[in-house]
Each structure stands twice: as C-alpha cells, then as structure tokens.
C-alpha cells in the first residue's frame, strides 16, 4: 500500500465509533474476539467484521496463540494519521498565533482612537 492508501484505510477504519472503542480496549492489551465482543454486547461475527476492517488498515494484528487468536493493537498507522493532522494543525496554529498578535494591536489602536479622537488610527 502507498502511504496515501494506507492513510485512507486508517481514516476509514477510525470513522466508526465501535472500531475506535475496540482500539481503545486493545490499547490496554491483547484480547480474543470473545473478550472483545463482551463489553460491546455484539455478536462474534459482528466484532469479527470490525476486526477485519482494522486488520486491513494495519491497525490490528493477530497474536501467536492458535487457540485464542488474540488481537493486538499496531500503533504505527495510528501515529501516522495523527502525525498528518498534527502537522496540519501546526500550520494553522502559526497563522492563528499571528492573528492573536494582530487582534491585540487592533484593540489597542481602537482604544487609543476612542481616547484621542482625531489622533492614532487614520481611517
């Protein structure tokens, strides 16, 4: 998968609240399909379906135990997805920090204008 396709799969997998809850559970440690199904009051096949989406996105892998077939969280794609959002966020935060400064400047200029009409800001 190209990085872009992988990210598509990650975002699609994360778009569902049940799948996010499954990932949150797996963040505490590996669990079998049975153990995952219990808190969600879902059938095993329904949980398996969600797990398949998560596996395809590379977010979940299968452990070694052949009996339980525990699922575990794979953190890397998740870090990639938040990494992209984080970098996007950083660009806008730069813009908005400049806007904070500009707003302070405008407020000060308006206050001066109110106190000294005719001086300060030229309009």
């Amino acid at each position, binding site marked *: 998968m190209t990085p*872009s396709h992988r*990210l*598509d799969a990650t*975002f*699609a997998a994360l*778009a569902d609240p049940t799948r996010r809850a499954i990932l949150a559970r797996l963040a505490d440690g590996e669990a079998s399909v049975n153990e995952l199904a219990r808190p969600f009051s879902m059938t095993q096949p329904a949980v398996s379906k969600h797990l398949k989406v998560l596996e395809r996105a590379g977010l979940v892998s299968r452990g070694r135990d052949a009996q339980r077939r525990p699922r575990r969280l794979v953190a890397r794609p998740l870090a990639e997805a938040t*990494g*992209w*959002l984080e*970098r*996007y*966020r*950083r*660009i*806008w*935060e*730069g*813009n*908005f920090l*400049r*806007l*904070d*400064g*500009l*707003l*302070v400047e*405008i*407020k000060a200029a308006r206050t001066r204008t109110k106190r000294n009409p005719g001086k300060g800001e030229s309009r």
Partner: protein
Amino acid sequence: MNTPNALQVSAPGDREIVMTRVFDAPRHLVFEAFSKPELLKRWLLGPPGWEMVVCQVANKIGDSWRYEWRHTDGRQFGTGGVCRELVPNARVVFTENMDGYPSESVVTTTFTEQDGKTTVTMTQSFPSREIRDMVLKSGQDRGVAMSYDRLAELLKGHARAANPPL
C-alpha cells in the same frame, strides 16, 4: 501545551476537517480580521517564507474570492471560490477550489462570542475521503518544509552553543 485558547483540529467522519480556535477579542474584530484584505495579509501566511500577494475577498453572496501566496524561493500557491452565505460577524459559507486539486470543498466558518472571547469554527467538507486525505497530506508537505526551517534555526543556535572558545 494545553492553553484554553489552543487550536483543535480533527478529521471526523470521512470527508471533513474541523478546526476550532478561541480568540481573546470580540467577534466583530475577529470577523474583520477574517474579511479585510489588509488584515488577512498580515496573518494568513502559513509557514515562514510565504507572502500573500493576492487577497480578493467576497463582500456579498455570489461574489468570488481569490487568495494567492508566493514563497521567497519562487513557489506559488493559490485558492479561491464563491461566497454562498454571508452573515456579518456570525457565519460565512464559501466554496473553495485549491490550485492543483481536482475538486471543490465547502468551508463553513462560524463566529460565536462569550465573555468577550470569540470561538471560530471552520468546517471544511470535501467531496470524498480521498480528497480530504490528500489535503491533509499537502499540509504535511508544507509542514515538513516549515519544520526544516525550524531545524535549521535550531542547528544554528546549537552550533554556536556547541563551539565554546578553546
């Protein structure tokens, strides 16, 4: 770093990017900063090195808008669209076609004021998940360029500190 005004960015659902930011100013001032070219040019710049060279704003529904930026190294980037809704100091909806991207998004910006502070929420809705993710990726590219700038600065400072007179 979690200040009360911190920017929140999320990509909920399949096709959206949502940003929320609080500003320490009444909403008519924040709205002004979002709608007057002479003010927009001072903050809507992206990473270091970019200058806003075109800032044509929409003053009423149906008007088109166009922003262009130029980097000191010669790179250019532009975006624009048409205004669909305009409620002064409260709500703006416009379409956006970024240069180099195949399709249109719809951006809804709302301004709400409480206790003299203004919350701005920008929701950008794309036609598909693929395009939304592509835009996030372009943010990555520009973000990486910016990080390199920062790194260069950091290294300069570090080189000074690491070279004490012998």
